[in-house]
């Protein structure tokens, strides 16, 4: 190591000692951690600070954007034609499903009208791209290139073309962070589509695996079953596909069966994601429905019922 004229600082009388400064800064960091972790007191500060570091993230992301653009520009004719044919085939299938969907939507609307409870219906969608930034490799989080300036909000559901991908956890001005449903810290309220059995799918830290730890040994569930969001918890809208059951192991001695599922969204190689706004938000809905029931019991005079 090429140092130095040695540190000629006198030991006494040059500001506070190393120990004192360590204690002060250490206390500061512990204080910040407590504030940030406990009640999310630092939401505003963090949002501001993440805007400050955004240029760094943009700088890292930029070359990859450029490479992508160049690749698209130079894409071979043959590849484009193949992609085009592929997409047309997909569109035909989608159109076919859409025809059925129109009838279903109408039926659904009537049923909902009967129940007087409309779960959130998507009114606005936006595409966000995942920025090519590595966050902690042990955790499943991504940075999206849209933020508060595009009306994103905390807790917003993030989908890809095939299913639920995750939810927005932090919103900055230009970028926001989303946590994937496969992160070991998240749990997604789900329903087995075939039977209506409700449960919770917990992330495992593996991109291809969700675990359902609270399914009893005698529950009706088998490999191949589709899991959809149940809408409980108020984050995800009900009825969106989440995963497909892959493994069901029953042990007569254990209370719970070992159930694993594979997420339908492409957790490890999705690039473009769909952000969805719901009107009215699902949580407000439950409230509104509750009030409606109450007002049904005791109709107030003079208030027109819708």
């Amino acid at each position, binding site marked *: 190591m090429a140092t130095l004229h040695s540190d000629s600082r006198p030991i006494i009388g040059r500001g506070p000692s190393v120990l004192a*400064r360590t204690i002060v800064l250490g206390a500061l960091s512990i204080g910040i951690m407590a504030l940030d972790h406990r009640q999310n007191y630092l939401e505003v500060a963090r949002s501001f600070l*993440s805007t400050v570091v955004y240029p760094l993230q943009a700088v890292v992301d930029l070359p990859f954007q450029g490479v992508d653009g160049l690749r698209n520009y130079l894409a071979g004719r043959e590849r484009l034609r193949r992609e085009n044919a592929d997409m047309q085939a997909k569109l035909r299938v989608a159109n076919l499903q859409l025809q059925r969907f129109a009838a279903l939507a109408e039926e659904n609307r009537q049923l909902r009208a009967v129940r007087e409870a409309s779960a959130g219906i998507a009114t606005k969608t936006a595409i966000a791209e995942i920025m090519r930034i590595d966050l*902690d490799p042990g955790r499943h989080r991504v940075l999206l290139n849209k933020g508060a300036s595009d009306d994103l909000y905390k807790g917003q559901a993030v989908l890809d073309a095939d299913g639920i991908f995750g939810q927005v956890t932090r919103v900055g001005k230009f970028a926001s962070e989303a946590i994937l449903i496969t992160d070991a810290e998240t749990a997604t309220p789900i329903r087995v589509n075939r039977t209506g059995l409700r449960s919770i799918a917990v992330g495992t830290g593996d991109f291809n695996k969700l675990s359902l730890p609270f399914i009893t040994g005698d529950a009706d569930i088998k490999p191949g079953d589709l899991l959809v969001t149940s809408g409980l918890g108020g984050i995800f809208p009900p009825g969106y596909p989440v995963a497909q059951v892959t493994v069901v192991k029953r042990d007569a001695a254990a209370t719970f069966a070992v159930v694993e599922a594979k997420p339908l969204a492409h957790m490890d190689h999705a690039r473009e994601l769909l952000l969805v706004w719901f009107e009215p938000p699902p949580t407000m809905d439950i409230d509104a429905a509750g009030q409606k029931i109450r007002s049904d019991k005791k109709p107030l005079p003079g208030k027109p019922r819708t």
Partner: protein
Amino acid sequence: MMSNGSTGSLRIALSAIVGLLLAIVPLPHWLEVARPDFLLLFVVYWSLTAPRVAGLAFAWLCGFGIDLLHGVVLGQHALMFLLVGAITHRWQLQLRIFPVWQQAAWVLLMLLVYQFGVFWIDGIISQPVTTWERWLPVFSGALLWPSLVAVLDTWNRRRR
């Protein structure tokens, strides 16, 4: 060797920015899990080379930058950077005369302290990552130390 403060602090700030960028540059997965903590190595290097410019506040700020970029609890990495910086400052006079391999061994120890601290705080506030791979950066960082010192020393001498 830090002839005057201002060019020194410019160089230090520049290396801190590079360190922050290196912390988030996308790498293939097998390399990503072993990504050395470049910024921490820089902090240790500057704490030994220019202790009066790169003080504890510098170490703390670098850690805080990592917290922001990685979106974890604010203060987590700041605290561990501070700890490593403080230990380095406390023993800088001895460390500076160590041969480089001995320094590398000591850096290994520091990285271990750092990773363990981060792991511990993770455990207190949320789910820690428990795979063995999380300890890889400790070894990759220590292995990198000699070449990092060589590169930074050359840079320092040339641009004096």
